[in-house]
């Protein structure tokens, strides 16, 4: 991925901020709240009943537009775990009712008239990184293109458990732009592993395989940019059990002080958006220096694992 940059990070969360105990009382969790608290979770964000995943996506993209960064977009890559949209009840006569085009709606709403749209929904919680990879591939194959908007958004249906694989879930969206012009970070690589044999894995298998696959993922991704895991300056993770990365840091022989997930207690796991929220927090903190390399490892159902490596440029 030579000559590609990434920036304009933004995210949006469900409007209702709830404490884990409140959600437990409302029957939205499967685990006991004290068990999730022991994992580091405290708060999460749930949409208002009438809000949709598209509303979240629009809010994230609007933040980018407000900064004036939504110009010259050639493509929109839209990733979601739950592509079903808001289908009504009752028999379907016209299958168009089942179709949903959130990327097209973004294009129209934000006046990105020359942008084409691409959808990703097979990568679960890793879709945000899949979007970066597709963006990189599009820019490589389309020499005339300059900027690709990457968006991810998910909103759980009303009544669903806000817990998956022992993680507290928030409704949310994230967006960023991959382009040819110098930006906050250079996009060095994105690596993916898929094990379809575990496509229907339950929560315990998902947790059970997490360590071996994430270990492999980070090693292989670091190797793609000529590094060992220990040479990564930062590892910005999804919001998951806080012990998980204490263990992985030891296995990967990297300093746990360089593992960054400061939004764990405040937002929980936002499907594919919490890594972007954590990355924004790192960049805003000023602790990431130009030249430093940041790994973004993510795991998702399917089962999928993806990891990107960025290099801080500063702007």
């Amino acid at each position, binding site marked *: 991925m030579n000559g590609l940059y990434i920036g304009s990070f933004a995210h949006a969360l469900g409007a209702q901020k709830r404490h884990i105990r409140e959600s437990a009382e409302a029957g939205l969790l499967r685990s006991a709240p004290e068990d999730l608290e022991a994992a580091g979770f405290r708060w999460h964000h749930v949409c208002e009943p009438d809000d949709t995943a598209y509303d979240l996506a629009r809010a994230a993209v609007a933040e980018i537009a407000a900064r004036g960064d939504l110009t010259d977009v050639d493509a929109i890559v839209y990733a979601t775990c739950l592509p079903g949209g808001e289908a009504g009840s009752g028999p379907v006569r016209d299958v168009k009712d089942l179709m949903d085009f959130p990327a097209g709606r973004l294009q129209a709403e934000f006046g990105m008239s020359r942008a084409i749209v691409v959808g990703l929904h097979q990568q679960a919680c890793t879709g945000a990184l899949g979007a970066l990879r597709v963006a990189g591939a599009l820019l490589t194959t389309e020499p005339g293109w300059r900027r690709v908007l990457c968006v991810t958004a998910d909103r759980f249906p009303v009544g669903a458990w806000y817990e998956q694989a022992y993680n507290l879930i928030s409704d949310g969206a994230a967006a960023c732009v991959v382009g040819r012009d110098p930006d906050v970070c250079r996009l060095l690589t994105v690596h993916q592993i898929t094990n379809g044999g575990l496509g229907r*894995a339950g929560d315990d298998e998902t*947790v*059970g395989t997490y360590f*071996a696959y994430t270990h492999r993922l980070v090693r292989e991704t670091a190797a793609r940019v000529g590094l060992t895991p220990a040479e990564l300056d930062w590892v910005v993770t999804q919001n998951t059990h806080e*012990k998980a990365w204490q263990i992985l840091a030891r*296995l990967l022989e990297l300093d746990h002080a360089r593992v960054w997930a400061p939004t764990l207690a405040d937002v929980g796991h936002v499907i594919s958006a919490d890594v972007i929220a954590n990355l924004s927090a790192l960049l805003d903190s000023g602790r990431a220096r130009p030249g430093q390399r940041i790994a973004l490892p993510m795991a998702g159902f399917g089962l999928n694992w993806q990891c990107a490596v960025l290099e801080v440029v500063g702007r």
Partner: protein
Amino acid sequence: MTTLITGADGYLGQRIAAALRGEDLILAVRCADETELDRKRARLARVADAPVVPVDLRDADPFAHVDPRQITRIVHAAAVIRFDVSHDTASRVNVAGTARVREFAHRCDRLDQLMLLSTLYSAGRRRGEVRETRHDDAGFVNHYEWSKWAAEECLLDPPGLPVTVARLPTVIAEDTTGAVGQYNAFHHTMRLYHSGLLTLLPGDPATPLSLATAEFTVDAVTALLTAPPGIYQVCPGPVTLGTAIDTAFAVFEQDPSFLRRMLPRPIPCDRASFHDMAQAAQRLRGGPLQPALASVTPFAEQLYLPKHFRTDRLRAAWHGYRAQNATALVEAACTDLIERSFRVTEDRSATAT
């Protein structure tokens, strides 16, 4: 010559009784009431033609039903054999129970031998070469190990009884065919790996494991019944942890359903990481990981404490000793687990859903 076997209805107790069939035996079993005693008598009648008496080592006089004058040998096999046993239970059954066997042995005027079935892991936290001698307290990984060490000490100090301590290996199969007769930490761990519930490997891959068949172990016990009293380590020839796992996965990978799931081989992890993972798993609601890990975790720390068990005394006393191919045994046991247990369980799960 009459041999009293405590824990005669246990996994090894039954097999020792069967091996001594034809000799005068008294089979001591623990039972809650007459109904359970009758059930155990019926089961043991298939093993040996011998009287079955109720003995609960937690009672003040557990051998009230046994005439000490006729006893010439005692094989003390009764014990709680679980790595996650509580200190209280281990103390009451394995230590205080052995003290009661010792008291009874002192009343047996014709006693030639009192054999304690102990464990190689009575060595506790020590590393390196382990001799067939009394152990001092090197600390223990779990209460089970401690209790077996304390039981050894209970019989060996003070001297005076004709005590044999047989420190036994981990039995993973009936014989070299690999048929699994009883689950323990080995089998629970293999199930976790086969099902994809665990991808961390606690321990140093170079740590030797002492895995054996029931056949080898019972042959050793019966051979030692005619050997001079003393301490013997029943170790059939080790296999390293890393080789055992590689062998198990080579077997698993012959299984199409396992192959389809493309499960990774586990990665070795340090002690703190495994401890953290096990601690976190305790809070995962009601899944299969928690109970399976409960049997593995209390033993896992031993896998960081490599030991090389000397068997000089065993080999001198047991002329039929033959080192076993532990790698082949792991292969056979894992094959059996897949064919008769793991695959059956998976099929049942599939049917249920």
